[in-house]
């Protein structure tokens, strides 16, 4: 095994050239040879996460198994003056787990034990590497589930969810990750271990857990998470509503919200998404000729569901829906959801690359914003597909492209900026569940003033005064501004240019 080769990636002296070997030795002493990756081709694989537009090789990757190891790794990095980047399954779409130059990636995938399940109090204590879906699978027999359900839940980890405050289709009714995290054990950026919050979810004093969740790995590394579990609903009805186009589907969703119904989830897939999914292993028999479909799920007491289904039918009909299908059994329901959750990956069928946007607008504005988004994509001659959490107003305009086509890449970036600007103009924000990461950092000024960001920096500085924990994420870079060209934003690291 070779020693790390810091020279090509070390920037601004962030990794002391002569200290690289010593750091590697120290890390090896903590996690063993098996838990340390330093070969160039090993590091190559870690150069990006779910966001492939940018890439940067780390100096080393460590795979700790305990909180004590994480703390020791952090202290070793501090001693060597090297920044570190926490990573879960690397499914994030904003580049939150992207290495920064000279950094050590702390990969939590081996910390995957469910430490305790307390069915009576509906809590569980898990290590950060526990896969989201595995937790729900493990407690299903107790009549419980873990409510936040990102579309990547088959792979993404609870630790990553905490970092990004991940949402999912069922956020509409059940809330995002922040509403389900009761307490966190954190390895602080100085290597100290701190417990925030309480299993009761009502710790006295400041809500430090609330501040930590969604901080994109910049305030410390969660090494143990106490989560709230939710009782499985008594009854579930899942409807598939067929619409002539996305705009009518959005209008129906707005009306459902406006009449005071609270479905568990409302998801819209447009025609291009339907086609991609139906070509994939997750095909669910969605009608290919539909302009859009709405998956609407209702849950709760059995006695209250039938009238709600009727209300949805009425609203659907009034909005030109051609058909309302109710899932006949659990198998069909699971199919609908697999189709929805596999949609992003299925886009791989359309083009080599995919840019998944993530913006939120007031729900009443959905129809007009969707129309604008389509106009922007058309104007830039881009292939756009939409699959999104309509009930939350959370859009995912997906642009399929080929990064090897430099001109197209430029148009993708340009259109992306215009889409975000349109969403902000409608009263929205630039990310609803994916996080800012590296992807959106230079768009933050669209939403926040320098004073707003300054307040956030105060929180950051209280936790991480030296800015060593996942630096360069979640805040605008000082070097570039939102108007800068794609290359200045780091896209020059894309191969084949």
């Amino acid at each position, binding site marked *: 095994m070779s020693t790390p080769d810091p020279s090509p990636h070390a920037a601004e002296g962030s990794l002391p050239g002569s200290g690289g070997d010593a750091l590697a030795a120290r890390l090896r002493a903590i996690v063993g040879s098996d838990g340390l990756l330093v070969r160039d081709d090993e590091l190559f694989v870690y150069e990006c996460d779910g966001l492939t537009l940018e890439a940067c090789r780390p100096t080393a990757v460590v795979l700790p198994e305990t909180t004590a190891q994480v703390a020791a790794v952090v202290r070793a990095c501090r001693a060597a003056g090297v920044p570190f980047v926490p990573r879960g399954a690397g499914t994030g779409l904003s580049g939150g787990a992207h290495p920064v130059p000279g950094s050590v990636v702390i990969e939590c995938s081996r910390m995957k034990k469910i430490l305790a399940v*307390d069915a*009576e109090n*509906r809590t569980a204590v898990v290590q950060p590497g526990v896969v989201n879906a595995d937790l729900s699978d493990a407690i299903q027999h107790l009549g419980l589930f873990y409510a936040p359900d990102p579309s990547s839940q088959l792979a993404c980890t609870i630790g990553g969810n905490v970092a990004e*405050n991940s*949402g999912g289709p069922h956020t509409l009714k059940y*809330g995002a990750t922040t509403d389900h995290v009761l307490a966190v054990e954190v390895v602080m950026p100085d290597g100290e271990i*701190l*417990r925030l919050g*309480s*299993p*009761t*979810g*009502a*710790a*006295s*004093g*400041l*809500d*430090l*857990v*609330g*501040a930590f*969740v969604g*901080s994109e790995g910049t305030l410390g590394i969660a090494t143990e998470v106490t989560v709230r579990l939710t009782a499985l609903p*008594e009854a579930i009805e899942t409807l598939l509503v067929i619409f002539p186009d996305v705009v009518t589907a959005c209008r129906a969703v707005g009306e459902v919200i*406006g*009449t*005071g119904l*609270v479905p568990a989830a409302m998801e819209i897939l447009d025609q291009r998404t339907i086609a991609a999914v139906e070509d994939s292993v997750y095909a669910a028999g969605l009608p290919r000729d539909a302009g859009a479909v709405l998956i609407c799920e209702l849950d*709760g*007491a059995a*006695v*209250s569901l039938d*009238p*709600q289904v009727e209300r949805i039918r009425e609203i659907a009909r009034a909005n030109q829906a051609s058909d309302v299908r109710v899932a006949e059994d659990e198998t069909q329901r699971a199919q609908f959801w697999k189709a929805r959750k596999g949609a992003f990956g299925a886009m791989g069928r359309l083009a080599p690359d995919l840019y998944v946007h993530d913006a939120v607008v*007031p*729900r*009443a504005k959905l129809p007009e914003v969707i129309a604008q988004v389509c106009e922007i994509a058309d104007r830039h001659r881009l292939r756009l597909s939409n699959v999104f*959490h309509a009930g939350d*107003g*959370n859009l995912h305009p997906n642009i399929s492209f080929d990064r090897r086509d430099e001109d197209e890449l430029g148009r993708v970036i340009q259109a992306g900026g215009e889409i975000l600007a349109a969403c902000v103009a409608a*009263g*929205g*924000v*630039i*990310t*609803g*569940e994916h996080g*800012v990461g590296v992807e959106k950092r230079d768009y933050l000024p669209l*939403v*926040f*003033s320098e*004073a*707003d960001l300054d*307040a*956030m920096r105060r*929180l*950051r500085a*209280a936790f991480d005064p030296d800015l060593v924990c996942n630096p360069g994420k*979640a805040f605008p870079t000082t070097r570039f501004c939102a108007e800068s060209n794609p290359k200045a934003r780091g896209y020059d690291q894309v191969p084949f240019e």
Partner: protein
Amino acid sequence: MSEASGAVHSVQAVQQELGADVASMQAPGQELAGQRIELSLRPRDGAELASCLRALSEHEQPVVVTGGCTRMGLGNRLGDVAGVLSTERLSGIVEFDEQDGVLQAMAGTRVSEVAAAVVARGWELPVDPPGGTTTIGGAIATAATGPRRHHYGPLRRSILGLDVVLASGERTRCGGRVVKNVTGYDLAKLYAGSLGTLGVIESAWLRLRPAPEETRTLVAVFASDASGRAFALGLEAARRDSVRAAALVSGAPAAELGAPTGHAAGCVLVVECAGDPGSVARDADWLVAETGARAVPEEARLLGRLRELQGSGRLRARLAVLPSKLSRTLTPLADAGFGVIVYPGAGFVYAVAEDVENAEALATVDAVASDVCADLLIEAIPDEARGARDVFGDPGAAAPLLRSLKERFDPHRILNPGRGQGFR
């Protein structure tokens, strides 16, 4: 420059800078929260609020920040302040999106005013704190809660965005008006419940809930604490989805809610069912059958009286307890003579007392809290006892972090000095 003369000089400087429309000197001898108040600041908009804070920072004049002044006893003992900064004139609903069910209100708007405005349009404000004059800003800053927490969850869940003026006078925004948002740090969580120690809330975007089609309040009287507890603590497991609020009340407060006198050991269960008519009827009928509960007309304001009890007592402790430990929490508190109000769904136990001997009563609360691993918050405590402890509990290893936060958000300690956890 001596501290005393310097302070006088600067208070006047602040007043002069801000002008009589916003700032006024108080008559000698005015007190608030046990502190002498010389200056009263009453900004009318965000810009004036920012000016106030800028001037206070510049002259290093600490203030106590108030909304409706309903919960002035919360937090650790206030340090020396020069004046009061009231948000009461920052009032009004700025925007109410009826289709989306979201609303922006100024911090000084009363909760009751907002609640009435939205109910008229089919929505509901998801917080029901005690205190008729409680403001939106005050409710957020104190993380206020009420019996309906059972259904609403904590208020922080419904805060979409906040406009906050920092101690420096910088006007900042976090969050937004949309219902799902991870753009930037979730600072709203940090401000909510921070008792105005990190910044002053100017306005808030809140997420509303659909108003229920039907609401029914029921009350059941139990002859013994044991039978009442057994039923109330089993409510959650009974999966009655329409239950919006449930409270079990024992001791002195129970009598006020109509527990028959002479029933020393009796307790009262108050339940509010709300939602679609089908499930409300189902659950109400079940309650009647199981407990002999009777429906109470709305005019009886039963929940309102319950909230008043929740905010009563010269000594009042809130224990947040895991469901499995609730039963074990209640007996020793009742035995020690506390009136006890339990929200089983939220896991909150309020122990209230008017006439217990303080040292002993506090020792009981501490012992119970430690036994059941409760999160203890002393909400009310006679002033003489307040200075002797951190009412939030010992912050332990988090103390440096808490100090660092205060230092960075309010370096001159002008906002509610001494109030927060570990800030003493």
